[in-house]
């Protein structure tokens, strides 16, 4: 798949051998957002790693959309907390100088 700003959902699903409904359900659960360009649904290129991650979790761990939504929320929180810890450590370093 070539790199560009938007990726057509039909193309993504064809490449990964999945139904389009999977991506549409993720949109319903506010995990990814879909853009309509000339009535054709697209996802933003920057959402691709997230979509792939959700697909792996769904296929490998049989996690349903409700579970994916909870995981997405918690991973975002972990990410935010990790950044906060890093930033606090940096601030602490200044006092250690």
């Amino acid at each position, binding site marked *: *798949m070539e*790199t560009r700003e938007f990726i057509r959902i039909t193309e993504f699903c064809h*490449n*990964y*051998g999945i139904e389009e409904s999977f991506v549409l359900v993720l949109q319903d659960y506010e995990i990814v957002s879909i853009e309509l360009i000339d009535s054709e649904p697209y996802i933003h290129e920057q959402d*691709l*790693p997230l979509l*792939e*991650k959700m*697909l*792996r*979790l769904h*296929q*490998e*761990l*049989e*996690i349903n959309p409700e579970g994916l939504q909870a*995981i997405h929320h918690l*991973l975002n929180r*972990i*990410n935010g907390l*990790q950044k906060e810890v*890093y*930033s606090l450590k*940096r601030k602490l370093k*200044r006092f250690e*100088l």
Partner: protein
Amino acid sequence: MDFIDYYKVLGLTKSASEKDIKSAYRKMARKHHPDLNPNNAEAEKKFKQINEANEVLSDPEKRKKYDQYGKDWQHAEEFEKAKAQQQYRRTSNQQSYASGQGGDYSDFFESMFGGSGFGHQGREVKFRGQDFNAELRLNLTDVITQHKQTLTVNGKNIRITIPAGIEDGQTIKIKGHGGKGSQGAPKGDLYITFSIQNNTAFKREGANLYKTVNIPLTKAVLGGEITVETLTGKVKLKVKPETQNGTQVKLKGKGFPVYKKESQFGDLFITYTIKIPTNLTGDQKELFKQLEKTNLN
């Protein structure tokens, strides 16, 4: 090559049913899945082991072979041939075989079942390659100007441009420099996190720099001129008369370059610390006594 107890990996016994295996696999995979444990190499390793154990134990044929030969898997083929010969000759000779030794986990799997890997249970899913994470340590003086650097990631040299003003802990993404994708899927990305060591006398907060400068008591009281070191060289500063301890002055545009904003710089904040003189001579002490008598506050 070490024997791997796949039952133990999944926390099961040899009598485990198909349902038990499926349930144990799901439970452990959910706990150790790399997507649920970001930046955790240990979880990734454990997940690989769990997958391998499931690959063997959930396939009746593989499980049978594994159960039959166990740690003697290395000579399984040899044993099978010998058995066939024995049946043909109708003799009662016993073929002996030894235990396997040394090596690592993946070799164990491949030697026993071939390098088939995972995900061949009727599903051919394309997966984007794994994302790689790397840390690059630089000094603060290295990121004052934009420069190019060659990195070696997984044996491959990658030349990257490091923009001026990059922050400690900042991560940049290099697209398509991660692991290879499966079934023709795209490569993963390379994430480089910068660890910037401060090798200067400045404290940095974003694009602003902070420095404490000592000034003599007389200069603080009477005013004067001092020379201050900045990132780009020395500058002369006027100290106002009656400057108080802790006074902060701002040198506009003398801070750090603003990330990805060419020709934009933060500010340099200088905090004055007034140095109280020590080892005074008799005359100097006398002068201070005279000052004291003037009821100076």
